[in-house]
């Protein structure tokens, strides 16, 4: 079935409907980290 958001008659087939989908994605990332101190002395937090 190839669907669009509405049927040809204009009915909203999605109202009351449930959809399920899923997938697997793997990608290379380079992300900055904020507020994390590497190689720091432990700090006691009151």
């Amino acid at each position, binding site marked *: 079935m190839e669907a669009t958001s509405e049927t040809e008659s204009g009915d909203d087939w999605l*109202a009351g409907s449930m*959809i*399920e989908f899923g997938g697997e*994605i793997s*990608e290379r*990332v380079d992300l900055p*980290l904020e507020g*994390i101190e*590497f190689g720091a002395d432990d700090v006691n937090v009151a």
Partner: protein
Amino acid sequence: MTPPRVTFNDEEMTLTLTGIGAGWTFEQLGELRLFDEAQVQFPSNWDEFQIGVATQVVQSNWRLRSTTFLEQSLQAGISYSLADGGSGQMSADTQLIEHLLRRPLISMDGIFTIKLNGEASAQGFSGDFYIGLGIRGQF
């Protein structure tokens, strides 16, 4: 003393989202604070520091990339159950995917399986980010 770097080797964490509230759209899920909203299962051998680093990596990448993850998953195919009882599977064109992402939901559940493979240090995290998504939405 916290370590100068942390290595991740494809350990798996699982985030389970249940009953995200009415009015949300799939497109807005990038704004979700995953670790506040989800039931999270971290690898049992991680310490608090590793958990803190992984949490930030996952939340940052989710905020940046969630719409792409959802679009790609929707492109792979959709199972549906209609209000009149009909059900099946379908492929969605770009227009429908856009509509599905922006239409308010009655509720949403999801299970995310996430693995990191790489190294985190003061320079940031560099490595592979894997996410497996399983999502159900009620309109």
